[in-house]
């Protein structure tokens, strides 16, 4: 339809597109320059330039332990979710067993059930299991939230891969394990890595479940931020926000690289 376009319509669409891109990106990015302000309050345009709020973030014990806790939880979540999710994808896309649609639904349902409800359900039992307010509890909770992303990504890789390669490996005498590690895993690796990256981000940014699963002694960065934004806000919160955004964006760029490395299929 594009070649039947007349000029004014084109200009209108381009303007609308630019406006929407602005709407999508600008409101969030406004935080970034504000984090470098010299002033003691959040202001735009920012006054002067300084790293004082980043310094504050690193030296303040609450913020800095928040960063460390968040990184720990996100790394452990990514590991656990990637292992469980990759195995599950293999089982779901190649397995044959009764109740497959139940398993399919179960693995995707953490995306559908409202996160507040998930948080309260888990909190209720995790308190009884004595893992609420701890690293273990939060990693388990975040892994459940992250699993669907791993399974969708790895399953897509598995669906597009040519299984004749495995047959060839078997014909040449490779046992299933060898064929998995030498043929299958390298081919689906981009999907696995994408799943790992999405799991990390899911945990790194997650706040609602974390509000319930953390305690005064063990807090993640988003929870610390949540506690702050409801009171008087100083520019440290902008520095924290920028940190959260930078980590996520860097990982998404990594994902683009991973996808580009994927063998053409």
């Amino acid at each position: 339809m594009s070649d039947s376009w007349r000029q004014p319509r084109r200009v209108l669409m381009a303007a609308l597109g630019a406006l929407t891109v602005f709407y999508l990106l600008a409101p969030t990015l406004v935080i970034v320059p504000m984090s470098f302000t010299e002033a003691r309050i959040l202001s735009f345009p920012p006054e002067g330039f300084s790293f004082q709020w980043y310094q504050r973030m690193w030296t303040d014990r609450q913020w800095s332990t928040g960063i460390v806790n968040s990184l720990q939880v996100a790394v452990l979540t990514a590991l656990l979710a990637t292992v469980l999710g990759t195995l599950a994808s293999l089982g779901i896309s190649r397995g044959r067993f009764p109740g497959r649609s139940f398993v399919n639904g179960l693995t995707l349902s953490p995306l559908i059930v409202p996160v507040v409800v998930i948080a309260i359900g888990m909190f209720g039992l995790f308190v009884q299991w004595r893992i609420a307010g701890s690293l273990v509890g939060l990693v388990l909770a975040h892994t459940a939230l992250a699993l669907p992303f791993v399974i969708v990504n790895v399953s897509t890789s598995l669906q597009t891969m040519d299984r004749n390669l495995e047959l060839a490996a078997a014909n040449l005498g490779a046992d299933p394990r060898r064929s998995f590690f030498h043929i299958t895993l390298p081919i689906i690796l981009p999907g696995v890595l994408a799943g790992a990256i999405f799991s990390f981000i899911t945990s790194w940014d997650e706040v609602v479940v974390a509000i319930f699963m953390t305690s005064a002694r063990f807090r993640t960065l988003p929870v610390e931020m949540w506690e702050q934004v409801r009171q008087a806000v100083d520019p440290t919160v902008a520095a924290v926000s920028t940190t959260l955004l930078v980590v996520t964006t860097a990982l998404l760029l990594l994902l683009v690289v991973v996808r580009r490395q994927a063998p053409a299929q």
Partner: protein
Amino acid sequence: MATADEARRRPWPSLVGARPRFNRWSALALPAVVFLVVVFLIPLLAMGLRSVTDPPGAGLANYEQFFAQDAYVRVLTNTFWIALLATLACLVIGYPFAYLMTVVPGRFAGLLLIAVLLPFWSSLLVRTFAWQVLLRDTGVINRFLLDLGLISEPLTLIRTTGGVIIGMSHILLPFMVLPMYAVMRRIDPEYGRAAANLGASPLSAFLRIFLPLSLPGVLAGSLLVFVLALGFYITPALLGGLRDQMISQLIVQQIQQRLDWGFGTAMSVLLVGITLAVLFAASRAVRLRDVFGSSVGED
């Protein structure tokens, strides 16, 4: 399941012979299934149980309490109302954008996709905080308008329903655009050309060819946004006023402040029930795979 001995004799059981009810690959799904049952499903079921047993012998009392009070029912209708408005806002902004993504050359389409995916994956809390900073009485928008002399005193933007809708539609927009784009890009441009060759004006070609073919995407996106909006907590809590309370806020309030687990879990069950009912009702018109498939990062 096959014993180790059998497995050695038949290393590729799924490729030869009669189809068994199980094959060896199946076992690989087991750890994740057990994990989700223990960490996710059992807690949800326990929550449901608690809603009818806390306080002991509660039965349906917690649910009756909810529907007996106008204030609670108002929160529920308000939740629907806000979710609906946010969905409409996303639709109005998202449709032209998804359309644009399908008609621009590939390189630009990639850039537009990045513009959608970056906010999609960045922190909801950070984005809500950004809107707080923008919408405050002393915020960026009011300062800008005051400096321009367009207004003489700050507009009340935050702690209003409008503020909640703005923040939520900004956060939910990618969930609208991605399913619509997934459907629109599959529409064969030849149809449009054929219509033009047969004398249709661009407008009528759009209205009679493209629009109807894109409707599955519109439905999928709207459904996804609406369902997600129903469960929003952070954004209405930071951008809304007391009158804009949504059901998630009420749930957290009951559990965290009043420690009223019976009532809190009953409302949670209600929220899940409504979400599932909306999805079930819509599943007749929409393929749920389209809804959730495109929202988790592929494509």
